[in-house]
């Protein structure tokens, strides 16, 4: 069955038919899920070890000649003149990009409700959000429209939607995957990551997209072997559980139960689990919402109606700037631009931006110290499962849901979300965070949970049944 197939399954099947099956499935299922902003008109079958395997790419990653909108009116008709490095590498290996997926505008959001075009539905319950901002990619994979997808993760944007949709989402160590062609939201936090139906698939994609890129000077020269240790067990490993998880008031009870089950499983597999304190963790969300909007306010300055994208003319240069940006950007994007402009202004730079940078350093120190003694830190990916579309309107409540995912971005460490059971009939994600550049170990731990989780069958995660 196409919709359940992983990359590994594809390797042993008729490659000539996969693209067609994907496009077929998009045609029938996607009107209900609405995960794609753009579906490619023609998808060429290219040679390579992964020839013909259909994947989706989040719409903030440039694809040469294929419209890339960032789910924003301001880039509604933008056709990039170049491929992102990660896209180019996947194409070179034969992967076929069948379309560009929906997201919160400029990746600012956790539900795809902030897309300028439409909201994507959760394949497990179409009344619910798929999470975000890579909600389109997660929903497209979970509903079996594509074999895998690329997302981007600035504060949890790969892991949280993967958790909401019951698939695997991996955020690599900062600097491992090139950001060239990833349309910047917050440059010091952004990282491209795979969304897949298995941990091995995530490792396979990482093996291709990771590595030094001369076009991104924040990438590092470091070879990581993602695959050879993947199946090894975790006996004797040490896992840290932050007390702060249990102190979080909005933690859903059923999510907490699944989390406890995951800990029990770890112990059963021979791991040593210990509670720890990471005191600065409670400042992570506040720190994130200073740094990310500050960088965003600068990164989004280029959308001015002069060179490309939307232009709405009004009296004079300033008028055109204002009108273009007012109409071109949605409310959430404008909110964050205003926030970031404020915290970077000369009068508040010290009090906000610089202080946030200092807190970021302290948090990094705290987290890295824990990781000196432990192999990984475990938390639920999100304190709650997928929520009903339109049910969260207060920005603060919305931002606070990022509590468990933002630390990995601030510290730059690898983190994965894997499905681990259900809460209120919706998927729950388990998050595993590791040391910088120990991405392979994080994947190996995730694979052990995936193999032994009682919610999986033969080590395979359950896939929702989506019917029209």
């Amino acid at each position: 069955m196409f919709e359940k197939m992983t990359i590994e399954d594809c390797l042993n099947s008729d490659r000539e038919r996969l693209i067609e099956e994907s496009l077929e499935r998009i045609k029938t299922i996607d009107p209900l899920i609405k995960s794609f902003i753009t579906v490619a008109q023609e998808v060429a079958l290219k040679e390579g070890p992964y020839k013909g395997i259909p994947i989706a790419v989040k719409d903030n990653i440039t694809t040469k000649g294929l419209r890339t909108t960032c789910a924003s009116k301001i880039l509604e008709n933008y056709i990039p003149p170049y491929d992102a490095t990660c896209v180019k590498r996947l194409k070179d290996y034969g992967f076929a990009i069948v379309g560009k997926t929906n997201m919160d505008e400029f990746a600012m959001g956790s539900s795809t409700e902030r897309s300028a075009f439409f909201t994507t539905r959760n394949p497990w319950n179409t009344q619910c959000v798929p999470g975000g901002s890579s909600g389109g990619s997660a929903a497209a994979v979970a509903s079996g429209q594509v074999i895998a997808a690329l997302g981007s993760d600035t504060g949890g944007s790969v892991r949280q939607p993967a958790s909401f949709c019951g698939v695997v989402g991996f955020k690599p160590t900062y600097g491992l995957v090139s950001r060239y062609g990833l349309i910047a939201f917050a440059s010091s936090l952004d990282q491209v990551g795979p969304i897949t139906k298995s941990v091995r698939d995530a490792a396979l994609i990482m093996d291709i997209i990771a590595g030094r890129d001369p076009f991104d000077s924040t990438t590092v020269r470091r070879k990581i072997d993602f695959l050879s240790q993947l199946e090894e067990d975790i006996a004797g490993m040490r896992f840290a559980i932050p007390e702060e998880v249990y102190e979080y008031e909005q933690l859903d009870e059923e999510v907490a139960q699944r989390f406890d089950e995951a800990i029990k499983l770890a112990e059963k597999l021979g791991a040593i689990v210990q509670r720890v304190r990471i005191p600065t963790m409670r400042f992570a969300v506040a720190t994130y919402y200073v740094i990310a909007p500050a960088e965003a306010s600068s990164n989004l300055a280029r959308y001015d109606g002069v060179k490309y994208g939307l232009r709405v003319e009004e009296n004079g240069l300033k008028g055109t700037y204002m009108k273009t940006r007012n109409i071109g950007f949605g409310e959430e994007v404008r909110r964050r631009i205003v926030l970031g402009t404020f915290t970077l202004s000369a009068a508040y730079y010290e009090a906000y931006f610089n202080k946030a940078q200092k807190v970021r350093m302290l948090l990094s120190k705290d987290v890295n110290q824990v990781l000196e003694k432990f192999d990984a830190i475990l938390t639920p990916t999100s304190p709650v499962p997928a929520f009903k579309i339109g049910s969260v309107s207060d920005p603060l409540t919305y931002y606070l849901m990022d509590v468990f995912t933002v630390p990995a971005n601030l510290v730059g460490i690898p983190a994965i979300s894997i499905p681990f059971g259900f809460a209120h009939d919706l998927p729950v994600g388990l998050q595993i965070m590791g040391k910088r550049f120990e991405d392979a170990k994080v994947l190996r731990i995730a694979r052990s949970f995936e193999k032994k989780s009682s919610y999986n069958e033969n080590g395979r995660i359950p896939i929702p049944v989506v019917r029209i």
Partner: protein
Amino acid sequence: MSYRTVVGLEIHVQLMTKTKAFCSCRADVFELPPNTAICPVCTGQPGALPIVNSSMIDYAVKIALALNCVIHEYSRFDRKNYFYPDLPKGYQITQYFYPVATDGYLNIDVDGQIKKIRIRRLHIEEDAGKLIHEGDSITQAQYSLVDMNRCGIPLVEIVTEPDLSSPREARIFVEKLRSILRYLDVSSGDMEKGALRCDANISVVDELKGIQSNRVEVKNMNSFRFIEKALEYEEQRIIEVLKSGGTVEKETRGWDLATKTTVSMRGKEEESDYRYFPEPDIPPIIISQDRIDQIRSALVELPDQKIDRFVTQYRIPKYDATVLAANKEIADFYEECVKLIDKPKEVSNWIMTEMLREMKQLETEQINISPAHLVELFFLMEKGEISIKMAKEIFPEIFKTGKMPKQIIEEKGMRQISDEKVIEEIIKKAMTQNPKAVEQYKSGKTNILGYFVGQVMKETKGSANPQIVNEIARRLLEG
């Protein structure tokens, strides 16, 4: 003097690296058709990222060494945020918090007095594009076009302390700086083409009242002359305001070529907040001591060092050495010539007066002739085939056409009269015509000799060999 002028400069220098600051587009874009040296990076396409051009760092280190700066092992890029159509990313990549170098100085020569001008900082940044307004001026234009060729050309910004005390000193400083940049071969330093751009901060201290005026920033001074003119104008304007008891506004003014005045561009209330913050796309720049040492050891001899060497090696006056060393090509030309003509002072005189005059007249900075031209000219003079006067006469043509001196002499049929008989005849004739002068000479007024020499020159239209004329005249008068 009860008024003292205080000037500080901010100078932008375009570097002549092969490629732009943060992408692989060519950096030599002058006179290229608009938007033909561009790429996703320098046009600010979504998702594009900057990559540091490492030779740009080397060039900056070279300049910093020449300006006696402290070069920092750790420096960093920052973003300067503002909106303008010539700035495709909406921010300029610059160095604000941690510049590559600080605390340097440059000695300038003001009427023989050495004055030390301190350099506050030196940092690297990228240039913006160019706007072309379709109409007479920016306010009249129907629309404007953007040329992004210049976007991302590497710049070094040099900021001085307010150590300059006159418009002339400001000009001397910039001239000296340009000379150094050319010596280092890091910039054309061409002000007309915008490769060297100078802004000035000027204020005036009323010494009697003990108050200092607000600082005024002056822009648009795109030649050495305009730097001096604009600052002279501004200096006077500020003094007038102070005299009338008014307050000098803290503002930015531009030099207006048409009216030869400075006009207000923007006031204090329009000052921008650039929201500087560290550029997250570029890791910090680490410059090792090894790299600095390597660049230092490969550094060419700089003007001041050359002046000292010329004075000791060629025994020419410091003034001569200073004039020659101001332009590296001229200094090199001088040395080539001196190798072949062992007359350092005479060669220096010739270059300083005859050759520089020609270059000025032709408005060129190119030396159109080779040392061989000068060598031949000196050889002909020495042999007495031509007089100094004749040599001076034909030099412009040598310089303009590049023809060898001999060829020109032959073409013109010029030849010095060294024939003693001819000269004797003329002098004898003059002696019989003016016996009084002969008497005077014999009574001891020997400087009347000049009269007879003059007569010969007049008769021969200046083509007689003066040395021979002198000798013969003396012999005949004394005999």
